[in-house]
Structure formats: structure tokens, C-alpha cells
């Protein structure tokens, strides 16, 4: 059986990474990310009521159910519902209604449908003895276009964190390991962003930076497992081993740990995504993309790259050192 040797296939990994990253950059430039989870353009149906005077909790449930019935009969799907409580800002006079339900719709709702829904809701309210008091409930449609969301983290921050951590890696494991680690962290951040752009997974506006940061951190952690195994190989071997043998031996001990760690992280993300509310699910589940990059790079791309990096560093370290020229030649002298 042919043994799978990823450290011998660097051109293939470079080609795969290049294709994904370049395609991702083009899509990022042309379309950006799919920030549908942020509901960048939405219609809202607001139902205002006076919770202190007229509408108790039982009536609130009734009102909510009544609205949902009308949306369903008009073929509208509610993307989200939020409860709001009125508050006075500065010198603003008290608002006539103290609380409201806000139903969000991300698909386009025509003016006719809006009018029809509003009229049907009002008719049903009037027909309901509990809700039909004078001015007890007020309904209104709104439109919203988000111009800015929380997407202003300084992107350089992750790079600074990773570089500082890699300085430590360079001291403890060697400059070659740190250089490969740096390449992998940058690669994984870009790879994750590219995958997000290509797959068009709906995310929140701030999510791409957060995902890139997570990918870079995970990449660092997984690459460290390789570094530890490489250090162990160096310690255990009696004579200096060549780059390929070192990577091969380290890979044999590291890949299972990398797979287990990445698997647990993926399981935690899946668990959170599976059990959480839709809002949290939309924030967390796409984080699986941030696991794909580091796993690919530490299991396939990283070892292949490190063979070349280590070979170059071995060559450098041999320069200027006396070479073994053989017993006979030494004797001749």
C-alpha cells in the first residue's frame, strides 16, 4: 500500500491554497462577504402597546399570536422578533406606548402587502374584546438599511499577537519553525476569509475578522504540536537527521493529536450551533470554516513547507563549519 506523504506534495498544496485564496480575494473585492445575518436591508412591523395600563402578559401573547397568524396567511416569514420597552431620552416627552413587538422581515414586502397586513391586524384587534380598547394598540411598518455595524476592529491586532507568540516559538523551537508557523497563520487567516467569500455563508458584519483571528490562533496551536514533535525527534536522534526524515517522524506522532484537537474544537462549535438560538447559531456555526484552514495547513501544507524551510536553515547552519573529508584524506595531510 502506498503511504500518504503530504510533505512531498508542496506544489499541489500551494496550487490549492493559491486557487482558493485568489478566488476568495476576487470575490471579496467584487461582492464582499455575505452579511445577510446582519439583516442589512429589512422591513419591520412594529406593534406598540401600553404594558403598564392596558396589556398584560396574557394579552401580549395573544397579540403576538394574532400578528403571526396574519403574517402566515399573507405568506410572510418572520426573520426575527424583538421586544422593546420605551425609554425617554434627554428631554423627550413620555411616549404614548410603553412597549412594542418588532417583527423583522428580510425578504422584500411590497407596499400592498404591508397595507393588507396592517389592515388585517387592526381588524383582528378590533374583533378581539381583550384588545379592542380605544388606542390600545398602534401598528406601523418601517424600513431599515444598515449603514454600519460593529466591524471596526483593527485587523492588524491579530498579526501583532501572532508575531509576538512566534518570537517565543523562534526562541524555543527555532527560527525555521517560527517562520513556517507565521506563514501558516497568515495562510489560514486568508484561507478562512477566502472560504467565507466563496461559500457565501451568511455571517454578521464583524464575523470575518473574528473568524480570521480564530483561524490564526488555532493554526498556531496546531502547528505547536508539530514543533513539539520535531523537538522530540531532534532530542531522541543520536545523529543529526535530514529535514525530510525529521518532518516525517514528527508527522507520524503529531497528526493524531492534531486531528483529535481539531475534532474536539469542531465538536464544540457544532454543539453550540446545534443547541443555540438562531441568532447565536448564525454567529457560531460558520466558525467551522475557521477550523478547516488550520487543519488543512497543519496536516498537509505545513509539513510540506517546513521540509524546505528546515532544509534551508540546515544548509545555513552548516555554512562555515568544518566538513568531514574522510579518513584517508586526513591521513594524507
Amino acid at each position, binding site marked *: 500500500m502506498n503511504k500518504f506523504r503530504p510533505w512531498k506534495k508542496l506544489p499541489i498544496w500551494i496550487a490549492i491554497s493559491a486557487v482558493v485564496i485568489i478566488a476568495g480575494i476576487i470575490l471579496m473585492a467584487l461582492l464582499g462577504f455575505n452579511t445577510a445575518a446582519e439583516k442589512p436591508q429589512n422591513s419591520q412591523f412594529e406593534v406598540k402597546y401600553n404594558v403598564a395600563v392596558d396589556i398584560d402578559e396574557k394579552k401580549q401573547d395573544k397579540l403576538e399570536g394574532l400578528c403571526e397568524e396574519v403574517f402566515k396567511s399573507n405568506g410572510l416569514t418572520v426573520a426575527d422578533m*424583538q421586544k*422593546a420597552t420605551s425609554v425617554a431620552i434627554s428631554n423627550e416627552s413620555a411616549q404614548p406606548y410603553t412597549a412594542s413587538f418588532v417583527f423583522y422581515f428580510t425578504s422584500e414586502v411590497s407596499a400592498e402587502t404591508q397595507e393588507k397586513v396592517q389592515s388585517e391586524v387592526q381588524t383582528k384587534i378590533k374583533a378581539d374584546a381583550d384588545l379592542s380598547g380605544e388606542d390600545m394598540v398602534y401598528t406601523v411598518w418601517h424600513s*431599515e438599511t444598515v449603514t454600519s455595524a460593529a466591524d471596526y476592529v*483593527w485587523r492588524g491586532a491579530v498579526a501583532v499577537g501572532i508575531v509576538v507568540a512566534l518570537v517565543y516559538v523562534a526562541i524555543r523551537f527555532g527560527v525555521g519553525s517560527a517562520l513556517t508557523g507565521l506563514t501558516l497563520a497568515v495562510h489560514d487567516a486568508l484561507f478562512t476569509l477566502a472560504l467565507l467569500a466563496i461559500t457565501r455563508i451568511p455571517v454578521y458584519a464583524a464575523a470575518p475578522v473574528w473568524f480570521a483571528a480564530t483561524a490564526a490562533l488555532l493554526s*498556531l496551536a496546531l502547528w505547536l504540536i508539530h514543533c513539539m514533535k520535531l523537538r522530540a525527534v531532534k532530542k531522541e536522534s543520536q545523529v543529526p537527521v535530514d529535514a525530510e526524515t525529521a518532518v516525517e517522524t514528527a508527522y507520524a506522532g503529531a497528526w493524531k493529536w492534531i486531528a483529535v484537537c481539531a475534532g*474536539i*474544537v469542531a465538536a464544540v462549535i457544532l*454543539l453550540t450551533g446545534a443547541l443555540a438560538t438562531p441568532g447565536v447559531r448564525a454567529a457560531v456555526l460558520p*466558525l467551522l470554516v475557521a477550523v478547516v484552514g488550520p487543519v488543512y495547513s497543519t496536516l498537509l501544507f505545513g509539513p510540506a513547507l517546513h521540509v524546505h524551510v528546515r532544509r534551508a536553515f540546515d544548509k545555513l547552519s552548516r555554512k562555515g563549519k568544518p566538513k568531514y573529508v574522510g579518513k584517508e584524506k586526513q591521513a594524507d595531510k
Partner: protein
Amino acid sequence: MGKVKSAICLTLMSLLIAGLCFICFVSFGLPNGIDTYNSILQMTQKDADLGMRYGGADDESDRYLGGGYTAVYYPEGVISAEEYETALKGMEEDADKQDYTEQYAKFGGLYFDTEKIKSKGGAAYEPNDDFKAQFESAVELFTARYEALHLEDVRVSVFDDYAVRVFVPQNDGAAFTPLSYTGDFTVKYGSDASSAATIMPARSTEEITDYVKGAYWRTGADGSSFVVIDFTKKGRTALANASSGAADSSATVFFRVGDNDALQLSVSEQIDQDSLYISNSSFTEISAKSSAVLIDTAVNGVKTELAFSVKDGSFRHAQYGENSLLWLYIVFGVFALAMMVFFFVRYHLLGLAHLYTYLLFLCGTVLCVWAIPFLTLSVETFIAFMLTSVLLCVSDAVTFEKARAEYATGKTMVSSVKTGYSKCFWNLFDLHIVLALAGFFTFFVALPALSNFAFVFGLTAVFSGLGSLLINRFNWAILMAYTPKKGAFCNFAREETEDE
């Protein structure tokens, strides 16, 4: 470790963990039926995406941690449909109603005062192009202002076509009013606002940027916040000249945006400096931030001629849904259960050592997120905590496995633990240091929400390192002192060798 020492340590450790778990996680109603004892976790500030009530059955709506505030900025002459309809209903005379309906025209979801905002022309009302251009500039200005606040989860949106709606987290609602001010930035000096002389005007021949470079905020080591205004040489001279007589008669410097005061500064001596640091006892971080951002954008930002009023304030519960936090707790519960099943099945009673370590790690994290002012319980911090939880579990499992391998070769348990730890100590040490460094240095540079994620990641990586390399070993030692069958206690077995 001797049995007596172990018993004392185990009792103390158990009491410590029980006490920490109680204050961190247990909430209950007090016997008077009115007050409630709230756990640390309950009282931890949540971010805008998550939220939870605290207190007992008599909850009031203001007993809620998390969520945030929204407010709508309406341009002068524009009102909401609700305001229009409410005003119309309140009029008794038909003539008044007719005047009102003639004065206001509906466009989009809003009503426009046709006297203040002229129509573009045509049969139906549509605001003129100049208004539209000014509104676009205003949207750009408000967006820049709220982005400059660097708040987590802030949102700015165009609402009903010609209003601006803003959402900020729970503790930052104080920014709404100051950030609504528009107009030129001027500096006045005098005893009161009405008689004060303008010393840094936006004249036709000069710009305010000839006098003022900009403004920013800083937080001091004692937690006090202040605004810093940078002057040009010309600005410094103008203020020094104006305040030259301040030692004899005190006065006030008024920093104004349009017709509103952005800041006031009482002066009792001459001010002659490039940067002015302004603070007072009522300054909070958000008020300092909003004053600095207001001044900076009034000096260097986009200009708009529209004036705005802030209305329709409302408090929104968790943006990710009312029960989102509860479900995150359930996720954690499932994870913890799976973790303990693994440890108890694979390592039998040695799982207790990990359980004690993990509980200390958990309580330490909860206490830190509660006590450190800039941290909130958010999805980001939860994920950071879960990632380092995995790190702690893997680290503990590695130490157990190393000891298991040593024990299998025939060594005593004490020797196995010692050798096992010594074999993996530096690897685990390096792993934790590297991750903590990456987390903390990212935190130093990043802004929310990444900074919170990075800080919690860095902090819990340190906790995980301490837990795995020190506390876990200590727990192991005190737990094993009692059992004569140490191998069975840990589910470790000797390698079987065949006799020749």
C-alpha cells in the same frame, strides 16, 4: 503526601470549590419574599447580543443585564407617522386638523413639514435634492461618529428612508444626545454662554482647522476619563490671549457644536498649551468618548446643515433572542457532562482531580469576567472560554496518559506521575505561553469585540496552564493518598510480560 495533610488539603480544597461555585452560580429568593440573592454569573454584564433578567419574581424591566438602546434621529421638519397621527388625534377643531394635514406631507414612512422642507416639484410631495444631499452627509457623519466610539455591537441605519436609527449597548445610551448635535465647531470665552466672545470662529477666511487639530479621549490609571483637545499654534495663541486675565476674574471656555455646548471648562488661570486635558467628576467613559468624538467630527468630519432631534428611545433585550444565554449555558452543560464522562470512564476516580481543576478554572473565569470592567459575557467570550476549556482538558489528558505509560512499564505511581509530568511539562508550558501571548498581544492592539475575545482567550490560557501544570498535579497527589490500589484508582494497568 501524608494522609493527614491530604485530608486537610482535600477538605480545604473542597470547601473552596463549594464556596466559589455557590457565589458564582447559585441564585435564590430570600425569606422576606422580596429580595433575591443573585449569583456572580447572574450579575455579570452581558453584551448587547445576550441578556438576562436578574432578581426574583417581582422583576422590574430595568433589572436586566445585556441588550441595548435604540434611538431615532429625525431631521428638523420630519416626524414619524406615530407622532403625526397622535398629534392629529389630539386636535379637536376641524380647522386645526386641516391646517395640520396641509402642513405635513407623507413621504416613505415619515411626514415632512412642507414649509420647512420644500418639495422637489411634481404632483406628489418629494423632498428636494438639497435636503436629500444634506441627509446623505448626515448619515455619513453619524456613521463616522458611532464607528469612532469603538463600541461592541453598535449599529447605524437609515430608518424609514429619511431618519437615522442608532443602536448602542446597554451602558452607552448617554451618547445619543451629544452625538445628535450638528453645525460648526466654535470656541467661546466669557462668563456666560450668551455674552461669551467667540475666540475660534469658522470665518469665511479661516477654517476651524486653522485653530484646532482634533480631539480624542483617554482613561487615566485611576479610571477617570478625560477629553483631550489638540490646538494648532494659532489656536494655542488665541486661547492664551483670551485667558490672559483669567487669574483676576475666572471665566468659562465654551466648546460649541452648532448651538449646543459640547464641553465647558472653568478657567482660573491662563491656558497656554498645545493640548488641553478636560475632565470633571461627572465624566463617565461614554460621556468623555462622545464629547471627544463630537468635537473631532465637528472639526474634521463631514458637514451637514440639517439639525436633528433624538426621539423614540427604546430598550431592546438580547439581540440574539431572549433565551440565547440560557441555551449557551445548556451548551456548556452538555460539554461539561461529556468531558466528565470521558474522564471518569477513562481514568476512574482520577477524574475527580480533573473535575476539581476544571471547577477552579471555571470559577476563576467567571469571577474575572464579572470583576474586570471592560469584559462582558458575550458569544465571543464564551467561545474563547470553550476553546481554552478544550485546551485544559487536552492538557490534563496528556499528563494522565504520560503517567499511564510510565506506570505500565512497572514504575511506582509516584515515580510515574513525576516522570510523566517531567516528560510533558515543557511542551504544555510552551503551548500555554504561546497562546496566552497571542491572546494578550492581540488584546493590547485590537478594539471590541475582538479585544474581549482575545483577552478572555489569553487569560483563560494562563488559567489552563496553571490548572494543568500545578493544580491538577496537586489535586492528584491529595486524592491518591488514601487508596492502597493506586493503579485501579486511576484505571492504570501494568504491561503484561510473558515469562520465558
